[in-house]
């Protein structure tokens, strides 16, 4: 039973657990002022875990391990690497946050939710899937409400929990019905059982709708997006960044595996529903973003719109579609973490979060301004940044699958997006501070911010310019679905 493949398949999870235990042991011995170094330990440890997994934990032929609970393939592996990268960047961004930077338990909770995300990407069984989703969510509920003295943060945690508990219960009801009608919980056996025609189309549709509520909540597609802006605004900013990138990508990892592997037989019914949801998500997300004045809320609503774009690849239900979703998420994680990182660095110095407060940023801190240009142009989908290539692939997958109307909606929405992203850049580059004395108001960056932002900015540019290897990996991951 116990084989090296079994360990290799969960090597990233084992390493994360070891890192968490290490932090548990080390953290109490550090004095309060040195305790932010837990961030270096977390980021360094995650980087080491990525390297070790890359050397010893590379998947070969897709295999099921741990009694069929976990699938060991490139799809899971690629997502795990993405999540761990996002986790490392988030740990660095934690460090100089006043409220959570010196709290060792924040890093532990981050690692716990990262463990859950890794299992979400790899799980091949409904039992494992549910457990992984909850392992991801529960630490994130706590982290959102982490700042106990802050009314908005406690409210964010509270709302996130209530919405999350409800939607995961609905999804679980769907899982229980799937188990009942097919007699199995394994995703890879489900497809065969369902193709035998044991389930009427109406019943399958109802069950898929129940499951979609839970996953739609995780990736915040309309109409399950109500929590997102409030939680992103209230939660500590590094957590908002993590929620809107890694947590959303984990939801997509499940969505892709579940819909491509377990329910392809009912594709005709759900692709159209997802296509409509995708169009509505993009449009609603973008239209609501237009009127935002708080930069965190702007990023929150725009992240809803981005979930809509990524969904086009799922709708396509082709290998190109799956590859484009994975590529989109990789580009989106780097870009949105960069955007949130800049917001954090800025508000740490100034304490301000409104868009108009960014006036004159390019003179106050040219580098920060330049990175903001990269992040927002990438979000808007401009070459040569990652967001452009990602959108091209997603739209290409949509056209290839015959969803031309959906792609047209997507392109119109991208144009709306360009407006509000450029609007922020207008404040950064064209406007000046009221007294035009920007040189007296610099925005100094501490070392963790410099490292995290530089790596993320480099990632955004690399994904956009040297995109062939990234797409090759996404394609290899997507191949495992068919």
């Amino acid at each position, binding site marked *: 039973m116990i084989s090296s493949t079994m360990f290799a398949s969960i090597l990233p999870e084992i390493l994360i657990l070891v890192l968490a235990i290490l932090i548990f042991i080390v953290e109490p011995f550090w004095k309060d002022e040195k305790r932010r170094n837990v961030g270096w330990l977390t980021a360094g440890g995650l980087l080491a875990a990525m390297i070790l997994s890359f050397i010893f934990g590379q998947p070969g032929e897709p295999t099921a391990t741990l009694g069929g609970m976990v699938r060991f393939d490139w799809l899971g592996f690629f997502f795990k690497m993405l999540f761990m990268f996002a986790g490392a960047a988030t740990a660095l961004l934690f460090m100089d946050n006043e409220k959570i930077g010196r709290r060792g338990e924040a890093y532990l909770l981050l690692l716990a939710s990262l463990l859950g995300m890794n299992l979400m990407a790899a799980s091949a069984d409904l*039992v494992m899937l549910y457990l992984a989703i909850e392992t991801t969510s529960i630490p994130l509920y*706590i982290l959102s409400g982490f700042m106990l003295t802050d009314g908005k943060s406690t409210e964010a945690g509270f709302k996130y929990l209530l919405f999350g508990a409800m939607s995961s219960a609905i999804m679980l009801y769907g899982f229980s019905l799937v188990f009942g009608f097919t007699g199995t919980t394994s995703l890879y056996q489900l497809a065969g059982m369902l193709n035998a025609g044991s389930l009427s189309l109406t019943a399958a549709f109802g069950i898929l709708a129940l499951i979609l509520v839970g996953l739609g909540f995780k990736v915040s597609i309309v109409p399950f997006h109500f929590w997102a802006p409030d939680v992103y*605004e209230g939660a500590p900013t590094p957590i908002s960044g993590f929620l809107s990138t890694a947590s959303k990508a984990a939801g997509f990892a499940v969505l892709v595996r579940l819909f491509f592997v377990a329910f392809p037989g009912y594709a005709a019914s759900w692709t159209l529903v997802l296509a409509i949801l995708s169009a509505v998500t993009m449009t609603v997300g973008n239209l609501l973003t237009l009127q935002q004045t708080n930069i965190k809320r702007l990023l929150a609503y725009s992240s809803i719109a981005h979930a809509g774009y990524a969904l086009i690849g799922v709708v396509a239900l082709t290998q190109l579609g799956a590859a484009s979703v994975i590529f989109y998420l990789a580009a989106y994680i780097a870009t949105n973490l960069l955007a949130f990182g800049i917001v954090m660095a800025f508000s740490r110095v100034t304490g301000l979060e409104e868009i108009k407060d960014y006036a004159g940023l390019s003179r106050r801190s040219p580098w920060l301004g330049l990175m903001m240009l990269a992040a927002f142009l990438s979000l808007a989908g401009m070459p040569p940044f990652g967001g452009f290539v990602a959108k091209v692939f997603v739209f290409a997958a949509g056209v290839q699958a015959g969803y031309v109307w959906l792609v047209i909606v997507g392109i119109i929405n991208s144009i709306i997006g360009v407006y509000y992203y450029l609007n922020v850049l207008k404040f950064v580059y064209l406007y000046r501070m009221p007294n035009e004395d920007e040189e007296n108001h610099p925005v100094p960056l501490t070392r963790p911010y410099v490292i995290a932002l530089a790596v993320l900015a480099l990632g955004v540019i690399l994904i956009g310019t040297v995109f062939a290897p990234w797409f090759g990996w996404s394609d290899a991951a997507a191949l495992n679905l068919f």
Partner: protein
Amino acid sequence: MVPLSWYLIFAAALFSIGLFGVLSRRNAIAILLGVELMLNSVNINLAAFWRYGNVMDMTGQVFAIIVFAVAAAEVAVGLALVISVYRRRNTVVADEIDMMKW
């Protein structure tokens, strides 16, 4: 023997009552109770499907055990968050916890 469908109808009714409670109640504790009802209806489903399906296959029971372990963890965190909100705002009524509006 009681037919399977009775259990399923019972579970569906319990689920609907729970969902109705979550959507209509204003007190945070009552909302959490509604979620618990929904999760318990899932457990009834799982146990019934296991009993009327392949009894030698333990998947249904294992799933049910995991569900109530996770439900306990979730409600523990939920009550902690409710207490932290109560300390700040002196209320657990969801409608009044509205610092952020869209």
